[in-house]
């Protein structure tokens, strides 16, 4: 049997706003913390995959970390950049070419919604000029249909946000650190119906670095071993409904997440019922609801009951987004998917402090989703 790739070190720069420290410096901060966590030095790292959407090419980090001649490949996959960097790092170790390497992601975005250039998505200029080039519109339209099709109340969207902020209070690396009650969330200004201000995450800043090693190397280090049972990245199938689509097929199809999730469970030799904790992409409240079903954790429509009964709370049967997710942490594009993995590593080690999931969790799942329709999934096991 093939040996597992293990996570032997994890570092994070707090998410949110950090004046006077650029995105790459936040990345360096996370790398140094990850190195210290695994008890190794930069010169021991044989390769790296890293990415950032707005803070420069990750390979420039060697200027500060040390000119060791390391192989350092830049990764760019929208919001799934971190997940993709991790995926590539896992393959590099699985291939046998390397024994120890790093996946890193960081970013620092200006305030306000992302504004995108139509030509970068193969769209004519009129699409942006007429007022369609907004991700928030896509999210609103997509969840509007989902709520209608599966008979889910708008209040369920509010409950997702309420849970995120509740969890964020207990999270050192979170940006939003205060609770927001359901009434405030539901009565906040509407951004793109049915989503109010508190149901969206904001572009933010932050960084995460993970040190990966072969099982043999991990044992030599003598650190707590977290096994990566799956690392899968997939793109969209026909008939999916993705951002910046001037038209979509009448005939509906699957989603990138559904196929990534299925492949990840196959690779790990387990199913959704075996998972103890999950971090799911929650760019907005609706995304978490849809992703609960797309990753196989419940049937479409059951989310309403799940949220009402607190089944995805930290103390529930499947805690989801235990660190507050994107809603409480914000979204630095390059770092977001790795934050999910960081959170699971901490939870599986049992060192998550006030937000520690009870019951000695052994398996943990992450799913990050991004434009233009990509999804990356990992399954971790202690």
């Amino acid at each position, binding site marked *: 049997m093939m040996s597992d790739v293990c996570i032997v070190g994890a570092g994070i720069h707090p998410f949110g706003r950090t004046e006077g420290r650029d995105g790459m410096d936040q990345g360096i901060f996370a790398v140094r913390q990850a190195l210290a966590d695994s008890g190794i030095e930069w010169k021991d790292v044989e390769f790296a995959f890293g990415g950032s959407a707005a803070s420069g090419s990750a390979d420039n980090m060697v200027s500060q970390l040390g000119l060791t001649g390391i192989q350092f490949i830049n990764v760019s996959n929208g919001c799934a950049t971190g997940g993709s960097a991790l995926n590539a790092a896992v393959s590099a170790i699985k291939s046998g070419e390397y024994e120890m390497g790093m996946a890193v992601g960081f970013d620092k975005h200006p305030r306000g919604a992302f504004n995108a250039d139509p030509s970068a998505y193969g769209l*004519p200029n009129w699409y942006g*000029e007429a007022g369609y080039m907004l991700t928030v519109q896509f999210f609103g*339209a997509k969840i509007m249909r989902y709520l209608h099709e599966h008979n889910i109340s708008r209040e369920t969207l509010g409950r997702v946000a309420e849970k995120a902020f509740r969890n964020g209070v207990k999270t050192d690396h979170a940006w939003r650190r205060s609770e927001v009650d359901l009434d405030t969330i539901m009565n906040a200004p509407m951004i793109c*119906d049915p989503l109010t201000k508190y149901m969206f995450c904001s572009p933010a800043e932050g960084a995460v670095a993970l040190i990966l090693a072969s099982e043999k190397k991990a044992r030599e280090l003598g650190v707590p071993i977290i096994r990566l049972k799956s690392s899968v990245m997939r793109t969209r199938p026909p008939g999916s409904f993705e951002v910046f689509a001037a038209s979509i097929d009448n005939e509906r199809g699957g989603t990138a997440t559904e196929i990534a999730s299925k492949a990840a469970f196959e690779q790990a030799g387990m199913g959704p019922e075996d998972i103890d904790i999950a971090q799911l992409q929650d760019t907005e409240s609706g995304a978490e609801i849809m992703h609960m079903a797309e990753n196989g954790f419940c049937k479409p429509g059951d989310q309403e009951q799940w949220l009402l009964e607190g089944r995805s709370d930290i103390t529930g049967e499947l805690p989801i987004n235990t660190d507050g997710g994107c809603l409480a942490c914000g979204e630095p594009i390059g770092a977001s998917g790795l934050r999910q993995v960081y959170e699971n590593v901490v939870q599986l080690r049992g060192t998550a402090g006030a937000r520690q999931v009870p019951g000695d969790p052994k398996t943990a799942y992450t799913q990050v989703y991004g434009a233009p329709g990509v999804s990356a999934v990992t399954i971790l096991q202690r």
Partner: protein
Amino acid sequence: MSAQPIADNLFTDDMSALLGARNRETGQIFFPLPLTPDDNIEPVALGTRGTVWTYTVQRFPPKPPYIGPTDPEKFKPYVVAYVSLPGQTMVESRLTGVDPDDVQIGMEVEFTVIPLDPEAPPEEQKLIHAFKPVQGE
């Protein structure tokens, strides 16, 4: 000079319908026409009647590249919908002639053309596509 379409190749010549694209091999219809001509793609007039599949309301003035009215004092929220055209595709479009709070999934709508900024002088108006509720037959 009167109001002009916001772009070429968006509408049929008489502006009675949107110009979509048909893949000659697969028959798949989509919108809009690709920016670069392709031997495999032929223009096709899209249907003018459909139903609202989903929608949202843009409640705040977008940043550039949006060129419509953005004055926060005067900004009017607009409805963006995906309109299902039977046998063809679903087109992302403005809805007009209906209050944002009265839009329903499944409502029947028909094609129309509206100015991006109704308050602009007529000669400067840029015309965009929209769908409006079908009135009782």
